[in-house]
C-alpha cells in the first residue's frame, strides 16, 4: 500500500471520520483516498477546503465538537496551517496533522526532504508551545503511529504531527493495520462544545487578556509538555551495544542509514544507530546515556542540519558530532552514506 493511502486508511480505522484538506503534491493521494473512503463510512465527512488555512480551521471546529479529525499537507501548505496549529495548541484541541514534506524553502520541489524538522519540533507557529511529532520510517510504522497519534492527541488534548516526506508518502509497502477502533467506543470527552444542555455554558478560548491568567495557562501547557516528555519519548536503537560510533537519523533518512550501517559492519566497523521516533519529545536522555561509552556521533539528515542541534543539546558537549546532509530532494543510496561513515570512522582513528 502507498504511504499516502496507508495514513488515510489507518486514520479511518482509528476512528477518524472528519478530514479537511487542500491539494498539494506529494500527498494528494491522502485527500483523494479520504474523499472516497469517508463517503462510504457512517458519519464520514470530507471537505476539500478553499485553502490550507480554511482546512486547519475546519479541523479546529470538528475537534471542538469532540471528533477525531485529520488534515494533511506538504511543506508550503503546512506553513499556512501554522496559525491554526498554534490555536489548536492554545485551545488544547486534539488533531492529527500529516506533513509529507518536500525540498523547500519557498515552493522548493516535490522531491523527498526533511527540511521541516525545525518547524515541526519547535511548534512552528507563534507562541510558546510544543506538538507531539512522530517521524515514521516505513509504511507499517506510519500505520501504527497514526493509531497512536490519535490516542495521544485525545489523551493529552494536543495536536500530533506525523512528519514524513515524499518518499514515505509515495512508496508502496505491505502493511498490517492494528485492530479497528469503533467510534462509539471512543472515550467520552468532558470539555467539548455541544450546546449548554443540562450543564453550565462552556467557552473554548485562547485569549487571556489578564497576564496572570495567560502565564498560568502557559505553565499549565508546560506541565503537560513535561509529562509527555517523561512518558511518551520513543526511539529505536540498532546495533549500539558494541558501537564506537553512533549514527543518529530519523524517518527515511534512518532507513538509508541502516543500509549503510549494514555495509560498514560487513567491513568490521562498529557503528550503531539511534533513530528518534518521536522527534518531539526528543530522546535526549538515551543519547546522553550512550555518550558514557561512545564519544563519536554522526548525524545524517535530508537537510542542511537541523536535528543535529538536538543531538548536540542532548550531548551537552560530551561527544564529537559530525553532520552529513543532502538537502533539496536528493536521496543518497546507502553506499554513498557508507563511504562517508567509514571515512569519518578512519579519520577518527577508531580502527
Amino acid at each position, binding site marked *: 500500500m502507498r504511504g499516502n493511502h496507508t495514513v488515510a486508511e489507518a486514520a479511518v480505522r482509528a476512528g477518524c471520520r472528519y478530514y479537511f484538506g487542500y491539494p498539494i503534491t506529494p500527498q494528494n493521494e491522502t485527500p483523494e483516498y479520504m474523499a472516497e473512503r469517508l463517503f462510504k463510512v457512517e458519519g464520514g465527512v470530507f471537505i476539500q477546503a478553499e485553502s490550507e*488555512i480554511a482546512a486547519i480551521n475546519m479541523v479546529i*471546529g470538528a475537534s471542538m465538537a469532540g471528533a477525531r479529525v485529520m488534515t494533511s499537507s506538504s511543506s508550503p501548505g503546512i506553513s499556512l496551517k501554522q*496559525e491554526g496549529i498554534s490555536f489548536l495548541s492554545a485551545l488544547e484541541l486534539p488533531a492529527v496533522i500529516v506533513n509529507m514534506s518536500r525540498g523547500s524553502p519557498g515552493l522548493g520541489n516535490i522531491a523527498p526532504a526533511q527540511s521541516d524538522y525545525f518547524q515541526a519540533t519547535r511548534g512552528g507557529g507563534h507562541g510558546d508551545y510544543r506538538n507531539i511529532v512522530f517521524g515514521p520510517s516505513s509504511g507499517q510504522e506510519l500505520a501504527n503511529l497514526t493509531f497512536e497519534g490519535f490516542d495521544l492527541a485525545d489523551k493529552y488534548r494536543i495536536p500530533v504531527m506525523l512528519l514524513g516526506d515524499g518518499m514515505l508518502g509515495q512508496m508502496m509497502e505491505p502493511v498490517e493495520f492494528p485492530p479497528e477502533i469503533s467510534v462509539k467506543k471512543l472515550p467520552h470527552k468532558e470539555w467539548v462544545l455541544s*450546546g449548554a444542555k443540562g450543564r453550565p*455554558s462552556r467557552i473554548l478560548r485562547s485569549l487571556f487578556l489578564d497576564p496572570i491568567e495567560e502565564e498560568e495557562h502557559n505553565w499549565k501547557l508546560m506541565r503537560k509538555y513535561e509529562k509527555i516528555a517523561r512518558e511518551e519519548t520513543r526511539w529505536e536503537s540498532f546495533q549500539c551495544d558494541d558501537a564506537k560510533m553512533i549514527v543518529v537519523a530519523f524517518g527515511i533518512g534512518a532507513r538509508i542509514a541502516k543500509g549503510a550501517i549494514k555495509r560498514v559492519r560487513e567491513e568490521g566497523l562498529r557503528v550503531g544507530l539511534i533513530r528518534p521516533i518521536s522527534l518531539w519529545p526528543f530522546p535526549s536522555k538515551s543519547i546522553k546515556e550512550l555518550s558514557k561509552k561512545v564519544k563519536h556521533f554522526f548525524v545524517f539528515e535530508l537537510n542542511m542540519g537541523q536535528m543535529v542541534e538536538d543531538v548536540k543539546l542532548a550531548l551537552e558537549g560530551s561527544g564529537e558530532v559530525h553532520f552529513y546532509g543532502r538537502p533539496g530532494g536528493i536521496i543518497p543510496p546507502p553506499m554513498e552514506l557508507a563511504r562517508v561513515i567509514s571515512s569519518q570512522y578512519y579519520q577518527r582513528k577508531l580502527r
Partner: protein
Amino acid sequence: MKKVFTRPRSLKQTPFHYCPGCGHSLLHRLIGEVIDEMDLREKIIGVPPAGCAVLAYNYLDIDMGEAAHGRAAALATGLKRALPDRLIFTYQGDGDIAAIGTAETIHAAARGEKITTIFVNNAVYGMTGGQMAPTTVLGQSTTTSPGGRKEQRDGYPIKLSEMLALAQGSAYIERTALNSPSNVLKTKKAIAKAFRIQLDGVGFSLVEVLSPCPTNWRMSPVESWKWIGEVMTTSFPLGVLKDVGDKRDAD
C-alpha cells in the same frame, strides 16, 4: 405585577465593558432574546473571532468556541459538519469577515454551509484603535486613512453582503442597522429569520448589522446613529439582499 422587561436567560449577569453607545451590547441582547424566544440555548454554539466581537463569550451564556482572525466560517463549518443538529453561528466584525476572512466566508456561502453569520459592520477596526476597515466609506477619516478615505489611495469599500448574495449556496442575506428603535426591532427579526433558515436546512444565512462605534468615529452616540442613517446607508443600503424562502428543498 406583569414583568415586561428583563435580562434574557441567555445573557450572563456580567456588565458590558463596551464603550458608551457601542452597538455590541445592544446586539448581544438581541441575540440573547432570540435564543430565548426560539428556545435554542441548549443547542446553539457561537463562534467569535478576534476583534471586539471575541469578547461576546463573556456575555452570552451559551457554548462558544473562539476562532482566529477571519477564520470563523471555516471553524463553524467543522463544528456544523460534526454536529449537524445544532445551531452554529459566527459573530464577526467587518475587518474580520470582509478583509482577512473573505475567502473563508465566500466559500462557506458557496458550499451552502448551514451556518448563520452575524456581521457587525462599524466601518472601522475597533479593538485595534480605529484603523481603516474594508467597509470604511469614502471620505471617512480613520487613523490609517487620514483626511478621509480616497479611492485613488485607499480603494473602495467592499460590499460583502452583495457579493455573498451572488453565491448559489446562500439562502438569506439581509442588511439592517442599529440606529433607531424600529431598525433595532428589524435587526432582531432578521436574526430570528436567519436562525430559522439554518434550522430548516436551507443554506447559508447572514445578517449584516450597521453598528455604531462612537469612540473610533469621534462622535457622540446620538451623532453616530445619525451618521449611520445619513452616510453609512448610502454606501450600504438596508434591506433583504437575498431570500430563497422555501424554494430550495430542505433535505
